[in-house]
């Protein structure tokens, strides 16, 4: 039972499910309606909101850092880590 990737920004909370969909939620919304979401190409390992809350960085299991805007748009993916083969 591993902890799930989550992150709280100044205005939005980022929640990730197992299918690597990032949802953003307005933290002032008591109804907790879903905000924009984006599909990341690989399972998400970490999420961090920027201090300004205008974008989040999503680390995926294939070593990519995905820059996701507040609007839910994936701006670009930066390949950072070369994941070693498990073989």
């Amino acid at each position: 039972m591993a902890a799930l990737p989550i992150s709280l920004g100044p205005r939005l909370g980022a929640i990730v499910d197992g299918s690597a969909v990032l949802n953003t939620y307005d933290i002032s919304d008591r109804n907790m309606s879903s905000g924009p979401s984006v599909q990341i190409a690989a399972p998400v390992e970490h999420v961090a909101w920027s201090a300004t809350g205008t974008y989040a960085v999503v680390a995926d299991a294939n070593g990519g850092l995905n820059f996701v805007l507040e609007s839910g748009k994936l701006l670009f993916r930066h390949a950072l880590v070369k994941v070693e083969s498990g073989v």
Partner: protein
Amino acid sequence: MLQLVTLVTISTFHFLFFPSGKHVCTLGAKAFGAMSFVPNSGPLNSDQDEELVVLDSSGRMFHFSRLSARLLAEASAGGGAPKSTLLASLKRRMVTQTAQLDLLKEATEEAASASIQLVAQWLPTLTRVVVLAATIDGAATVESWEVCMDRSEGNASGGAGQAQPPRCTHRGTLPPIEAQSHEGTNSASFALVPQSTASLPFDTVARVAGTSVEWWAAPPLDASAAGDAVSSESPVAWALAGAWNDENGNGAVISGLAVVSENAVVAALLDGTTIVQLQAATATVKSEEESAPCTVAIAAPGFRCLEVLSLGWRRRCTTQASCGAPASKPTTKTTRRLASCGFLRLMIPRRVLVRS
């Protein structure tokens, strides 16, 4: 749906036929250990540059500087300079590896069975990051690094490919977990507790394992300065640290530690290096229709609630954040059933609670 299918198809094709570098990517492999943004010290606005520290699971540390929200927004909108130019500018600001946590490297090479846990957190001084790296192999050995990076220096070192050695480091160890007194020695969890006020001299590393919670001042991790362990009735799963406003609404920010066990959430308050109160079972999470909590988080300053997600259901647990006060009655509110254990509503802003 068509876009999703297209994305998955393209990604799969690219993954199979164009693996990056000489390594073969493995789906499901752990690529990253931790990452943390550096909070801005000044007023927040879209022109502020930001910094990001990323650790991969082999212990390599990357420092990204001058991430500009304004440039990101412009690149997205297509305004100003051409998008390709803006993106190239952003990528140039990403600094390559800046440090290597040796223990993690050794662990991945020699102890395949050991699990690794990383905790990275920028401290309120805004000038340094403390990285706590631990291998959980039954002894819970810990490598603690204090990486000091001056903000102005960090901003000035944004050239691509320029390795920036950490300004100062520290390595320490925590005493091993006593297996005979704990259940599940491979389930240790760590948390870094931020300073709540400038008067508090230490930040704290907390470790939970089995049914005990232990803490040390960090850094350095001085075993002789360990506080008395507190116990939970059932094995604990996670320790999460944070700061929140006190219950009386006077705006005081209190550092604390939340510990999630199999059937309860407990909050431990910190006074300097001492846990002065452990509120046992402020919320009973497990019930006949619910499973153990999936995850939990503590609010940033300005919030006062702690929310816990159980599989399928969400519960809101109000924490009592004043020493010596009677335990508050948990405010439990099931709002909707969730399809999977993948949602965590974090904290409710105070202003929302006041309105209600």
